[in-house]
Every structure is written in structure tokens, then in C-alpha cells.
């Protein structure tokens, strides 16, 4: 099984290089806690789309808003 947590954090910190991955807890909200703006969120969606080849429609954005939500979402989508 793919380590979605590591993969998500890699893409998140590529989009926002100023964020220390060790300081992110699983329930931090990427916008409210980590201060990503809508452009950063879109860039993260683009990165996850390219890495895993899955479609993430706009209506699903709330489901990748924290590490734990994203892991569940990616597991559900990809397996």
C-alpha cells in the first residue's frame, strides 16, 4: 500500500516550501491552519492529480484539506 501521508506531505511542501513538514499535524487544515490560499490549493490538487493520475473534482477539495482526510480520500480513490 502506498504511503499516502508521505506523498501528500511531499507535494504539500513542494507547493509551500516554507512549511516545515515536521510541524504539520494530521488534523491541520491546509487553509485555516497552514495558510494556503486558493492558488496553493489548486497547485496541490494539480500535483496530486499528476502524481496519482486521479481526478479530484472541485467539489472534493474539502476532502483533501487535512493530512488525515487526504489519506482516507486517496485510499478510497486509488486503493
Amino acid at each position: 500500500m502506498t504511503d499516502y501521508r508521505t506523498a501528500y506531505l511531499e507535494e504539500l511542501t513542494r507547493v509551500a516550501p516554507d512549511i516545515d513538514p515536521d510541524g504539520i499535524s494530521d488534523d491541520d487544515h491546509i487553509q485555516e491552519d497552514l495558510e494556503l490560499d486558493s492558488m496553493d490549493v489548486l497547485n496541490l490538487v494539480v500535483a496530486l492529480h499528476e502524481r496519482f493520475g486521479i481526478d479530484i473534482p472541485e467539489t472534493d477539495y474539502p476532502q483533501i484539506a487535512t493530512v488525515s482526510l487526504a489519506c482516507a480520500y486517496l485510499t478510497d480513490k486509488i486503493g
Partner: protein
Amino acid sequence: MPSLGADMEAGTLVEWLVAPGDMVKRGDIVAVVETQKGAIEIEIFEEGVVHELTAELGAEMPVGAPLAVILAKGEAPPDPEAAAAPEPSPTPEPVSAPPAPVTSAATPPRPQPASGRVPASPAARVRARELGTDLSKITGTGPGGVIVLSDVEAAASAPKTTKPGSPLEEMRKAIAAAMTRSKQTIPHFYMSETIDIQPAIDLLAALNADRPPAERLLLGALFVRAATLAAVKVKVLNGHCIEGVHQLSEIVSPGIAVALRGGGLVAPALIDAVGMSLDETMAGMRDLITRARAGRLRASEMTQGTITISSLGETGAEAMTGVIFPPQVALVGIGAPHVRPWVVDDQVVPRHVVTLTISADHRVSDGRQVARFIAEFETLMKTPETL
């Protein structure tokens, strides 16, 4: 050293991208300068041959100091004894800071009066207050040791004896200087309107549903497009006001306010945006925001904005009343969209609305013109397919 904003006093040369003998033309990037707002790429506005690079890497130079000598075609090299010609500043400077002495220590200190008020010219006092400079720490060079304007500016741009603060502290200082200047010199007035943006939200959802993530649009791109087109109609809000002289801009280059994580913000300009499609506007914004975060904006983007657009993004407060970024004359503040009960065709229905607030310079515009801008913006947002 060009001024990269009304608030800039000095910059540090960190990289030369040309060497003596190189041909340069207008728009070429010739150097990188580290400022309070990050590393900025410096473009040249002349055509010719690089004769000499007079500034050394790592040197902090006041605005106006020469960096290099460029010879026009057929121009003879300058007399080496004569002072090097300063590189022209790319834009008219709102505050023309004369080049500071190379070392302020070269002037022998003059005796200060033992007590009482520090002698200084009125202009020097005003500038010192703007810059937050303590007059008692400055050595005057005017008659009888009176502090004159150039002393204050030299002191402000002289290398600091204390260690410079962190980049964030430096940016905070730059914002403080620009915003203080704005509120002290620009008579702001404000007009607001809450606008139904449901048509834009619906159009965006429909467009994005069929697009891969890399081609999706953000609501912010529609706002920038609407503000750009509204500025074409209401020209008085698009341009600069420098020392009381209003200069309308032929092109619209919206400055996009980008908040940086951890604090601070920059508002680089999307140069000449009128002819761009919605997709091109989105691509331009993505590029600007990426480079703003990486600290790699160009000098023209820092200085050539003609109207600022500050959008609070997709979540958060519903309205903002912004401070104009000098020397511009208007700022478009857009709150986050909220769902509110709204009357449409005599029915109360839930709609996404945003509150638009225009901050305008009363020296150059009045309520009627701002009201027209708001009406144009609203019309465009109601027919988003025309954006």
C-alpha cells in the same frame, strides 16, 4: 539603484546578469537586487553596450546610486575622473531621493547645540517623521549644522549600524513605510456595494468540471478581469498621482495583492492585462503568485501597477477597506464570498455574494466616478461569460 516602490530606500546588489561589453536592450534583465520585499530582477530601459559595472556585489546602495555605465551606440566612454552617470530610474520617482553620499562618515561631525530643539529644516522634520528617524541622531550639513532634507534621507539610506532584521521584519518595515505614506498623503474615500456573484460561481463550476486541475480557473481571475475591464471604462482610477500630478495610464496593469505565509504581502503587477483572455489572466496570476512566493519578481512588476486588486480569497471576512498603494490612486477590495438571502425576481433565494469596496484618492476622483466603476464591475460579474 532604481526605486522599486515608494517605500524603498536602498537595495543590495546580489547578482550581475551582464558583463562589460554585453549588448543590452530595453527590457533585458541585467541584475538582481535584494530588497525588503525579496530578490527583484532589474530590467534595463536603455539600449547600448555595458561599459562598466560600477557597483560591487553585496553592496547596499541607496536609491539613485549608479550601478553601471551603459554607452549608447557611438557614445564615447565617460572621462574616468568624472562621476559615473547614474542609470536612469525605470519610473518617475514619487520621492526623488538624491543619491546619498557614498559614506556618510566622510563628513566630519559638526558640533551639536548643547541643548534645546535639534535645528532642522521643516522639510527635514516632515521627512524624518515619515521615516521614523530620530533627528538627534543625525549630523546636519546645512548652515550652522542645521539638518536638511538630504541629511535625513542620507541617514535613512546609510548602512544601518545595527544588524538588519529578519526578512519578515524588513518587509514589515517596508509595508509600514508605504502604508504610513499612503495615509499621510492620500485623502482616501471609500464606496461599497454587495454584489451577487452567483452567475460567476455557476460559470466557474461548469467550466472547471470539464477541465483537468492544471487548466482550472479561480474566482480571483474573474475578479481581476472584471476590475481590469472596469478600469478601462473609468480611466480616472487607473494610474498614478505623483507629487500631486495625476497621470492616467494608457494601459491597465492590475497589481495583485499576494499575502505571504507568516506575514507580509506584495502586490506585483500583471502588466498590460486588458487584451488577456480569462485563461491568460489566470496563467499570469499563477506565475506572479508563484514568483512572489519564491521571491523572484521583476522591477517593472513592483513599480508599474496602475490599480491594486486585493481579494480576501475564498474563505474569511466579508469585506475589507484597503489602503491605496502609492503612487496609485485606487484599490479594489473584495471580501470573501458568502451565501446570503438575496432578492432575485421578487423571490428571496440563497446566493453567493461579495462585498466590493473601492478605496479612491479624492485628489483625482469623486464618488460619481467610483460609483461608475462599481456599476461596471457588477455588470461584468453578472455576465461572466463576457470576461
